């Protein structure tokens, strides 16, 4: 894989996208399709979650199969914050990010000692542990999950309205993407990608490889925590199902079909997968078969993902 560099047309495209997404809820309302505002919010949230995995997987080269744990912990952190009387998103969301990030730091500190397949499996094992802890925690709802009493407020503004909440998720994603874009071209991003390409050489050059990887892993965890906190607010529930390993698999699928190591890979993948689901559900109750066949087709015919068709990479 080569280093990430923004394509020359990326900036105007990004600005156009931001404008389009900002206008989207008003357009939907004008055409009487308010239902889709919730769907669009879901896409934005999963775009954030998949992008956070893409930071770890695509830029850091760490194949984690436990990313849903950070996602789910963020959701639970938000719900627990609300139970504790913190209803302000500006406090609860950073707390959720901190909790998920710290958990990722601990998981990474142990997992990053292993390599290859063993890393995949040990991250999976930690995610399973987190899953079973939440399933058995009766004070947090156990199997049923922890419901939220309602959406939180953001800087005093209630997010109960779908459009308001859409903009909360939208700004979260925009800030995260700006951050990731800067990060990929900053010194830290360069070092992380260089480690992905040749760990031994970076070690020989004197870079603290383990620490760089660990920070990248924890950052990815924190961003996933933010996505989880948003999702808990959207659905009104922090459920242990968010931590099941198939959820990690779904996030992975999003990143892979979007394009591993492309800035917008995660977002594109989330959009494609969720839209596919939405469309296929309308056609047949057995849409999983169709989705599976499409994913197989992607592996066989577009192995680099969809973003690879648009983005540019330079050696």
């Amino acid at each position: 894989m080569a280093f990430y560099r923004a394509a020359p047309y990326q900036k105007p495209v990004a600005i156009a996208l931001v404008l389009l997404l900002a206008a989207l809820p008003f357009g939907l309302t004008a055409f009487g399709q308010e239902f889709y505002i919730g769907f669009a919010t879901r896409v934005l949230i999963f775009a954030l979650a998949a992008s956070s995995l893409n930071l770890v997987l695509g830029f850091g080269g760490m194949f984690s199969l436990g990313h849903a744990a950070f996602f789910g912990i963020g959701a639970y952190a938000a719900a627990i914050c609300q139970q504790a009387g913190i209803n302000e998103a500006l406090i609860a969301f950073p707390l959720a990010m901190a909790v998920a990030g710290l958990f990722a730091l601990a998981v990474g500190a142990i997992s990053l000692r292993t390599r290859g397949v063993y890393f995949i499996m040990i991250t999976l094992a930690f995610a399973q542990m987190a899953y079973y802890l939440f399933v058995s925690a009766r004070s947090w709802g156990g199997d049923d999950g922890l419901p939220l009493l309602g959406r939180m407020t953001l800087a005093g503004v209630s997010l109960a309205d779908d459009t308001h909440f859409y903009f909360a998720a939208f700004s979260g994603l925009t800030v995260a993407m700006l951050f990731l874009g800067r990060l990929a071209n900053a010194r830290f991003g360069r070092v992380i990608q260089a480690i992905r390409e040749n760990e031994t050489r970076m070690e020989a050059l004197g870079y603290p490889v383990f620490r760089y990887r660990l920070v990248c892993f924890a950052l990815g965890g924190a961003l996933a925590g933010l996505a989880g906190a948003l999702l808990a607010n959207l659905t009104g529930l922090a459920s242990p199902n968010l931590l099941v390993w198939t959820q990690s698999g779904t996030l992975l699928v999003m990143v892979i079909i979007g394009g591993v190591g492309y800035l917008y890979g995660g977002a594109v993948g989330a959009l494609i997968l969720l839209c596919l689901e939405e469309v296929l559900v309308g056609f047949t109750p057995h849409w999983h078969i169709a989705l599976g066949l499409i994913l197989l087709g992607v592996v066989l015919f577009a192995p680099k993902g969809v973003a690879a068709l648009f983005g540019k990479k330079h050696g």
Partner: protein
Amino acid sequence: MTQLILEQALNGLQFGLMLFLLAAGLTLVFGIMDCINLAHGSLYMVGAYFVAAATQAADSFWIGLGAGAAGAAVLGLLLELSLFRQFYKRDHLSQVLATFALILIANEAVRVIWGAQPVMLNPPDALAGPVEIGDFFYPAYRLVIIAFGLAVAGLLYLVVAKSRVGMWVRAGAANREMTEALGINVQALFTAVFVFGTALCALAGGLLGPLLAVQVGMGESVLILAFVVIIIGGIGSIRGALVGSLIVGSVDTLGRALLPTLLRALLPADAASTLGPALASILIYLLMAGILFFKPQGLFPARA
């Protein structure tokens, strides 16, 4: 108390042997072809459904078991020839995506064919009752499973450890290129291993069918356990898979049975009742993380 421990130890042995049937195929697929097969759990599920259907048709559990395993082997052959062959040379990401897609397809296909309700699979009538061992009763069917599992595990061990084909398989797992250079057709060997692994999967699914429910999604949870087993044992090692299965089977079973009681003796009742089940279900993952921490290649690494 000793009676409880003895009974749970037998249960653990039985569970471990069934895990071995699953893990044996998985570890060889993984070890020889470096292919992550998340759909291995789906083969187990499909195998269990095949056995259930064949049992119903033939009205005999043992004929059903054989026919179901044979059917699963044919399915494995078709899958290997048509799809898996294309995945070996790809990276792990593509393999995960492709086999994840297969899980979706398999689950939904089973739901279409057999419906969403669990299918009942009854043990043979002669084995439905308990037998007396020493001073306690133990289900006869579970004893038969243990015997069956021991026989298959022993046979497999003999084949892999002592026969010429087994030597090729071990050589392929240790160093594929070198084995190919020595004139062994690893591709054909691997097709055989894959088919055999699928048949073992179906055997495990069929044997466990009367104890657990035969239902959609049964493969996913057991798949993770099988992965834990092969990671603990060392990827590509049959001996590792056997030891790993027995460790995971007994730790999981004994942990679930004894930990809550043990904790109640040590902690206040309230804390123990919350912590007990949680700790019991994460015990094997803790074990795996611990083993990987000290032996990052597993207990019996196939590649020295």
